[in-house]
């Protein structure tokens, strides 16, 4: 074709030009820098300012970090080594490493127990966190609390193992037996259990009524306010007294009445059996086993726990306890029974309205007044109770949001399938509601773990308590701030950041909508 114009046109390109490379400013690093750092005068200014700040910080931090002294016995020695130059004194971390991690009272030859418990914790948490792992590993998760208790607090292995054995044995026996028993036999058992429960409950209520009268009488009628309280307590006492026998009888009857499907009777019987076994059999079996095969670790008192270990214990225990409690509270708040709803609302709003530190004060100074005079609660147990209640209230609110976000159709669908309340919640509602609530629950969990540092204020020696107490008050390490606080911040950062990364991963895994 090009021949046709060969005479009339001076030049005709016959082949296509090879594509020219894009201008330098439109490719690679230069393009990236232009677009991301210098896309306008304002952005350029921002970049320069930000760069200046980063440089300032780095110029300050790098010499401080790399001049760090890792080997010294005291802050003075550190300063001598540095000789006036800026530099960190990381020797405090080396010197007090054990104290920071395990507290200053835990027996040093038992540190391996904590390390083992921690490694096992990772193993126990894995099947709960990653659903791809074989489900059978959850058995280890169920076993873990007993093992960890023994490792951390020491004592005889047989104590937690016997508790575990009693629970498992009772469960297995009742599961195997309850379907075998003929109906008339089951009726008799149900009658007996109903009697026991009814009489026991009546007796409890009777004691309660007596107690209320006792309170009323000790309040007295000195002034208008106390007279009012006096009247209220008397009314309550009369109410309880009037109802105590019918109530007990009714519950007994209800248990008896449900013998046909057998579920309630077996559960109540099993619980009664476990209770009796724990009260009467635990001590002899455990000590007997211990006499035969003594497996013992040096016992450690709760008040000797400390350091980052204490934060980890409080965080793990309270998170795992507050999740079920939070679900119950959220369901209670959604319930259409006014009394139960009211109790849950008051509890949640009260807990959410006060700072955790006041609840810790309650654990520290008030809870002892609410317990029978001879009972002796560990401070750590009291703290666990209060922190669990605290985070359960927050988790309940998160889950309530998840429940409210579900379309009403889901509830109606569950009803129309003929599922009862428990099944519809377990099979339809909660799996979806919990999925929506995961980010919120993880936020609460991370917040709770960070809040465990507050126990240092009621003079428990957790990580912050160790730093502020034994380390900064010692003559060697007085006025060491950055190194120890930086170390503490780093530990918390590692744990909390990994938890939040996990939650983001889980959210992606559970995403079932199509995008």
């Amino acid at each position, binding site marked *: 074709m090009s021949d046709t114009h060969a005479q009339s046109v001076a030049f005709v390109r016959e082949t296509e030009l090879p594509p020219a490379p894009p201008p330098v400013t439109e490719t690679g690093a230069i393009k990236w820098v232009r677009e991301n750092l210098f896309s306008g005068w304002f952005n350029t200014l921002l970049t320069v300012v930000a760069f200046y700040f980063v440089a300032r910080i780095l110029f300050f931090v790098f010499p401080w970090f790399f001049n760090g002294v890792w080997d010294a016995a005291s802050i003075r020695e550190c300063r001598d080594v540095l000789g006036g130059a800026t530099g960190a004194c990381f020797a405090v971390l080396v010197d007090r490493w054990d104290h920071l991690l395990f507290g200053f009272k835990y027996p040093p030859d038992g540190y391996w127990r904590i390390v083992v418990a921690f490694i096992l914790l990772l193993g126990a948490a894995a099947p709960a966190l990653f659903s791809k792992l074989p489900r059978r590993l959850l058995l280890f998760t169920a076993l873990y609390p007993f093992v960890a208790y023994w490792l951390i607090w020491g004592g005889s292995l047989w104590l937690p193992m016997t508790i575990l054995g009693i629970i498992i044995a009772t469960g297995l026996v009742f599961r195997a037996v309850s379907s075998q028993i003929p109906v008339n036999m089951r009726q008799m058992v149900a009658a007996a259990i109903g009697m026991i429960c009814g009489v026991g409950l009546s007796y409890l209520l009777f004691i309660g009524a007596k107690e209320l009268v006792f309170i009323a009488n000790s309040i007295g009628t000195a002034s208008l306010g106390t007279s009012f309280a006096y009247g209220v307590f008397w009314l309550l006492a009369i109410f309880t007294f009037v109802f105590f026998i019918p109530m007990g009888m009714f519950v007994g009857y209800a248990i008896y009445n449900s013998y046909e499907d057998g579920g309630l009777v077996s559960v109540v019987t099993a619980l009664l059996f476990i209770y009796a076994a724990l009260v009467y059999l635990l001590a002899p079996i455990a000590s007997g086993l211990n006499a035969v095969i003594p497996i013992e670790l040096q016992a450690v008192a709760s008040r000797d726990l400390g350091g980052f270990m204490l934060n980890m214990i409080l965080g793990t225990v309270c998170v795992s306890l507050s999740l079920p409690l939070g679900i119950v509270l959220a369901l209670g708040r959604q319930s259409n029974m006014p009394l139960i709803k009211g109790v849950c609302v008051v509890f949640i709003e009260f807990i959410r309205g006060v*700072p955790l530190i006041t609840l810790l004060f309650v654990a520290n100074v008030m809870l002892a007044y609410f317990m029978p005079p001879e009972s002796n609660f560990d401070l750590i147990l009291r703290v666990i109770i209060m922190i669990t209640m605290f985070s359960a209230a927050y988790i309940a609110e998160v889950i309530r949001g998840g429940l409210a976000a579900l379309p009403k159709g889901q509830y109606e669908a569950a009803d129309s399938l003929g599922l009862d309340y428990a099944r519809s919640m377990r099979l339809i509602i909660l799996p979806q509601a919990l999925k929506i609530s995961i980010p919120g629950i993880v936020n609460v969990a991370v917040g709770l773990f960070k809040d465990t540092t507050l126990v240092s204020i009621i003079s428990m020696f957790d990580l912050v308590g160790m730093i502020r107490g034994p380390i900064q008050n010692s003559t060697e390490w007085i006025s060491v701030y950055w190194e120890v606080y930086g170390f503490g911040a780093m530990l918390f950062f590692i744990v909390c950041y990994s938890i939040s990364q996990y939650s983001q991963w889980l959210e992606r895994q559970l995403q079932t909508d199509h995008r």
Partner: protein
Amino acid sequence: MATLADPIKESFRPSMLLNDTRYRSLTFQFIALVAIIATMAFIGGNLVRNLAEAGLNISYDFLGAQAGYDINQRPIPYESTDTHGRAAIVGLLNTLIVAILGCITATVIGVVAGVLRLSPNWLVRKIMAIYVEMFRNVPVLIWILIIFSIMISATPAPRDFRGEDPTASMMLFDSVAVTNRGVFMPKPLLGDGSMLVIGIFIASIIGIFFFRRYARKQLFDHGRLIPTLWPSVGLFFIPAILAQIVLGGPITLEYPELKGFNFQGGTTIRGSLIALWFALAIYTGAFIAENVRAGILAISKGQTEAAAALGLRPGRIMNLVVLPQALRVIIPPLISQYLNITKNSSLAIAVGYMDLTGTLGGITLLQTGRAIEAVLLLMLFYLTISLLISFFMNIYNNAMKLKER
């Protein structure tokens, strides 16, 4: 033809209390009621017994007794001879001061950081991400302690200001001294006629408000654009300054002066207050930044594009189109962040700032041994503050909510 028969009337049987959903809820509530009463009886009985054993009773008389301790930061006059009740009120005011300061600063930091996290500038975006992650994942108590140590170790001691050749000097024309004991600032002294100046100042603020309303009405009704910025600024400063000059300067400033080992006169903001305020503000700012970012991302891109198509500049798109809509998403979590600041301010006890927890829950509790009364009062105070904050913020939220018809 089939007729619809009435359902068979069932007579009531006791087993229906357990098996029939109509009656079962009654049963459960009854059991719950009994459980509550039993718990009350248990706790109350133990309490009465324990108190009798310790020889105590429940009484709030200690609030009227002499406190006998000093409070270093006091918004109202307070001496150690005053009562525990007054000490508690000083503590309450201190809590409110740090909470309000913290809320304002945290909001500013949070909004700026949240907007910058979405900036096209890579460096700024990354720095803000690091800031947010760093502060969200470390306990606030550690941050308070770190910032308090910065306050102590990075600022000069009052004695550094002394001598012929001081190593430290006061700022802002020798009026403000930043020391490790706190920041010393001039205090306004109110002379005769100063009320008039303050009154004029307040009147001019009200004037600004009405002027802006008038300008807006003119704009909406008649399309007339009246400049508001410079007139507002002028109205804000000029009348009060004129009144101050005309009346011969009734309001004077008392400057802090170095006397002996410390500064005297003026007002002092203790280092503990500053540390607590900054720590709470920066910590909560990181959370607010995430809320702001989520709120902005919740606004569909079409809104930004529509605003750009109208020819608005990026800054105006943010201010006029995106932020007002994002505010509706941001406010509910913001309320809970404000509540968190208020509750976290109780950590003041760690740096020795005498807030409500430090006075009522700290020294008063230890001195009088009235643990139950003090802790109950403490909870009541915090509960009231929390409920008030959420009440007012909910009113605001309802006012801002999209009015759907």
